[in-house]
């Protein structure tokens, strides 16, 4: 199994398409950083809107490395599922398309092992992407933009809020957020894997995964009560943005944030459990379907 896992990682590492994702992430992040270095002020003004009528804001350092990382993740984590699908959606169908699947399956390895190993390899790839994102979006941003307190702009129901988290209370939240994102993106990997089992070319499952994610995300963001109450809880995409929960700091009655606190840990925990359940169910479907499948490619 370990041998098989190494081979799978080796195969992924030798494919040019693997690095497309890293290049794409790097490009997006660098563009963000460049744009904010040049004119972050306008963006900050847009977010602050009329707050500046009532407050004098020292926002010179408001655009700091921590804030940049949050802004980048906010955008990027919606796109990353495409990159995950690129690898996980190809896992089985790509081999079927290339013709190597039938050779692979005549080797003394069980199909369950193959799914598990390919899933594990996709997971490692997901982690690698996230680590790369952390390096680029967080650490490089910190180097470029410096360190300071972080402002979180948030829409909470009917209200909008600005939360300020002190700089000594941020790093652990990022670690937790990246860990959460890893779980969320692993759901995408498992979904792509399931679709991959049923397809004989890799384009289908990649596009199907992306479409499912887009449709569910759009539905998740339709702010209509009937959808909020009845549909949203059943869409895994509603939980994909749960990493942000780690930045929703709890505050006292007077509105002073409590250092090291989370506003709603149970909600984050439940989201995590729901995502983990998705992973197991999807993986179960992938294994069952793959075991039953006649390989005719």
């Amino acid at each position, binding site marked *: 199994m370990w041998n098989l896992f190494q081979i799978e990682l080796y195969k992924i590492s030798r494919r040019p398409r693997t690095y497309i994702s890293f290049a794409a992430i790097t490009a997006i992040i660098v563009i963000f950083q460049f744009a904010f270095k040049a004119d972050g002020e306008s963006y900050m003004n847009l977010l602050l809107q*009329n707050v500046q009528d009532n407050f004098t804001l020292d926002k010179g350092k408001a655009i*700091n490395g921590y804030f940049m990382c949050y802004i980048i993740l906010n955008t990027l984590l919606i796109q990353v599922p495409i990159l995950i699908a690129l690898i996980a959606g190809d896992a089985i169908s790509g081999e079927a398309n290339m013709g190597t699947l039938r050779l692979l399956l005549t080797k003394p390895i069980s199909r369950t092992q193959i799914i598990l190993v390919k899933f594990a390899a996709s997971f490692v790839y997901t982690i690698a992407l996230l680590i790369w994102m952390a390096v680029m979006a967080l650490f490089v941003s910190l180097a470029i933009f410096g360190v*300071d307190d972080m402002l979180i702009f948030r829409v909470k129901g009917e209200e909008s809020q*600005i939360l300020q988290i002190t700089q000594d209370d941020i790093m652990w939240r990022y670690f937790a957020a990246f860990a959460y994102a890893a779980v969320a993106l692993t759901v995408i990997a498992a979904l792509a894997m399931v679709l991959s089992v049923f397809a004989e070319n890799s384009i289908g499952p990649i596009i199907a995964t992306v479409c499912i994610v887009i449709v569910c995300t759009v539905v998740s963001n339709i702010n209509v009560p009937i959808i909020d109450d009845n549909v949203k809880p059943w869409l895994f995409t509603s939980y994909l943005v749960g990493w942000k929960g780690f930045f929703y700091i709890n505050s006292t009655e007077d509105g*002073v944030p409590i250092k090291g606190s989370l506003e709603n840990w149970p909600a984050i925990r439940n*989201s995590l459990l729901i995502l983990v359940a998705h992973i197991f169910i999807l993986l179960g479907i992938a294994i069952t379907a793959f075991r039953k499948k006649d390989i005719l490619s």
Partner: protein
Amino acid sequence: MKKILSVLSFILLATAATAQDVEALIQKIKQKLDQVKDYEASGKMKTNVAFLKVPVADIKLYFKKPDKIKFKTSKGVSFIPKGAVSVNLNNILGNGKYTALDAGTDKIGSTVVRIVKLLPEDDNSDVVLSTLYIDETNLLVRKTKTTTKENGTYELELTYGKYISYALPDKIIFSFNTKDYKLPKGVTFDFDDGTAKKPVNKEKNKKGRAEIVFSSYKINQGVADAVFL
């Protein structure tokens, strides 16, 4: 109608009768304030605005006569309520020309205070009306209410302690109006944890408070002009 007229005329008469006294009272307070040429105050500011969750900030307040005032925070990111410059009474009393009116007395806690209304004579002044609640025995302003054209009404409650002889407060509670803050929907893709369903009290939403507690003042030790840039 007669009644109303008589009440009005009584008030006017009373005001006229006491205008001289009020003027004198203000002058006395100004004299007391005048002994402070500059100061550097250190303290903590707690901001309480519905949409703003910010930590208690370490602040420094610099003042130099006649009306230079500057807030500085130890950290880079800070929200300072705009009207907060009026925490210094010189900024209310300093700018010369106004008409002072006596509006009777009231009580703050157990202290009887005189209510003085100041009407600026300059039509272009942002301030429309300032109301001062003055502790006449100690010559201290305990509370002010300022109505402005642009920034609504703000209130100042001052509590004195160690620096009472300079008429410098230990604690200021600054209340102000805020405009509604709303982010464009869909921009942020927020995590909805299902807790935001409660209806929001709009009225309460529009009041902000900042509480500043000063721990120390350095008085008349000189403050460089560069600080105020």
